[in-house]
């Protein structure tokens, strides 16, 4: 009882943090206007002051404003990948599970193959071949991320397809697409919501890692990982405002998403205990 209650509290706390983060990143720039494209050499590495609450970085960008801009990209890419990857994985997994046989085997080997490719290595390679842009990153991270939901939905489909309502629908002439859309996916909705939440967190982590290594979207595009990458050079100089805020934003976002996902999963496992 107490642990379920605490799980719920943690889930609600995660949700509140996410709403606050979204407000900070998308509404913040309306109230706190900064220039995040034009570098200003007269304003480099200024310590926090009234004019710049979190100081400025090596290019003279206001750090507080840059956290907002970087957060927008993180949340946009995370959300887009979460939705696209879950949708792709759900369709793929349901089709494979429902069809079975040779097609199922072939489709799952495709999943295994992509799962064997190390995402960060492949993304770094692609970044050396083409300059990464936001739409390109969404596409490529999606192509490397839909595999876990595909496996989840397939195993759920395997148990659903023997249930009476699915057999009845198919006997009544319901085609593959209709069966998946009307009977399989609605029953897997909970699993999909959980999967999507974790996908968003993973995509944000991938983007941050890529940017930290210097293979993210090109400057002047702001990313939290990129801010950390640049701030690291000033760790010895004690310019804390160029290092800690960006790192804390990454951890807070990913932690909040994980808490919400965890809570969703628990509510699914024990429906009686939800809200």
């Amino acid at each position: 009882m107490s642990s379920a209650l605490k799980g719920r509290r943690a889930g609600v706390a995660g949700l509140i943090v996410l709403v606050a983060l979204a407000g900070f990143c998308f509404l913040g720039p309306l109230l706190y206007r900064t220039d995040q494209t034009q570098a200003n050499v007269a304003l480099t590495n200024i310590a926090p002051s009234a004019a710049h609450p979190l100081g400025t970085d090596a290019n003279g960008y206001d750090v507080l404003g840059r956290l907002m801009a970087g957060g927008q990209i993180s949340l946009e890419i995370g959300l887009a990948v979460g939705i696209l990857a879950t949708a792709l994985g759900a369709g793929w997994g349901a089709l494979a599970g429902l069809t079975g046989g040779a097609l199922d085997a072939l489709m799952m080997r495709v999943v295994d193959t992509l799962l064997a490719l190390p995402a960060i290595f492949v993304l770094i390679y692609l970044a050396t071949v083409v300059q990464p842009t936001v739409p390109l990153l969404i596409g490529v991270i999606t192509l490397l991320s839909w595999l876990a939901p595909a496996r989840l939905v397939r195993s759920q489909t395997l148990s659903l397809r023997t249930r009476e309502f699915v057999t009845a629908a198919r006997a009544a002439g319901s085609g593959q697409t209709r069966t998946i859309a009307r009977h399989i996916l609605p029953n897997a909705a909970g699993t999909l919501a959980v999967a999507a939440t974790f996908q968003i967190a993973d995509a944000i982590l991938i983007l941050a890692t890529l940017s930290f290594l210097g293979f993210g979207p090109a400057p002047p595009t702001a990313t939290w990982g990129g801010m950390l990458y640049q701030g690291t050079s000033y760790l010895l100089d004690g310019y804390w405002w160029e290092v800690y805020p960006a790192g804390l934003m990454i951890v807070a976002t990913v932690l909040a998403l994980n808490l919400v996902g965890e809570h969703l999963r628990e509510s699914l496992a024990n429906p009686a205990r939800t809200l």
Partner: protein
Amino acid sequence: MSGFLLRRTLQAAAVLIGVTLVVFVLEHLIPGSLARAILGPRASRQAISAFNSANGLDHPLVVQYLDFLWRLAQGNLGYSYRLNRSVGSLVISQAPNDLILVGLGLLLALAIALPLGILQAARRGGAIDQLTGAATLTLYATPSYWLALLLIAALSIGAHLLPPEAGQGGGPLGLLGDPLGLVLPVLTLTLINVAWFSRYTRAAVIETLAQEYVRLARAKGLPERLVLTRHVLRNSLLTVVTLVGMAVPMLLTSGLVVEYVFNIPGVGLSYYTAAANADYPVELGVTVVVALLTVLGSLAADLAYALLDPRIGTPSDVGSKP
């Protein structure tokens, strides 16, 4: 049983073929051509066509792919013109550093995460579970480079206790020759791995605790400590075996990041340097090696699982989160 082993091995082989196909496609994504990328934009037309015919790049794509497969089958991972050495020799000379770094991080993490996961599960919902659970959840959301930076800031720059860089002596002895320099990188990897493994262990032990044989052991009056060590630990070890096999990509990716942050001359850092210099052959060769290790890891996990637990026909999907 043997049917399962055979089927699973054939699947792994099919996946390996798939991986080589993807890497072949990746190679052909290089803008312009491989010859241009290597010889430079000012290379003459003659030089380009000489390079292409010397490397079989003027053959049809199917033939090129089969050539590529044949070279891989012979252990030829390609040649780096930038480093003027074969990718295979580069990987072999640096792999010991990765083995030390990633291996130490894995072993230490298992030594901490297993007892921790069992303790958390045994005291599920209690104060210890709540506190350590919050800590591992936070660590789970922490990127390895961010943790590394925090450790450097606290223990190296703040307290002056440890160097912020690993030993630069070169070779495996160089890394081991400076044990103090290894502390922070290994600590970073250990903490990141503990977050991962303890969460899975906790989930596995909670599942084991609900089994009938555990309830029977308790019902017949066996002390809780013996229930945990004799019945629960043994059965949860199955999950751990699987986990290590499944963790290969995670281990190698955090290895790359940590090698970059602490400037450790391993395969991961070579990959990073190659990417920064557009040294495509090294990037593609290392990608093949990492994918191969990933496939072998997951194959080993499934086979070990099947061998250790005779009830298993088809292992459940352990790739998903706990």
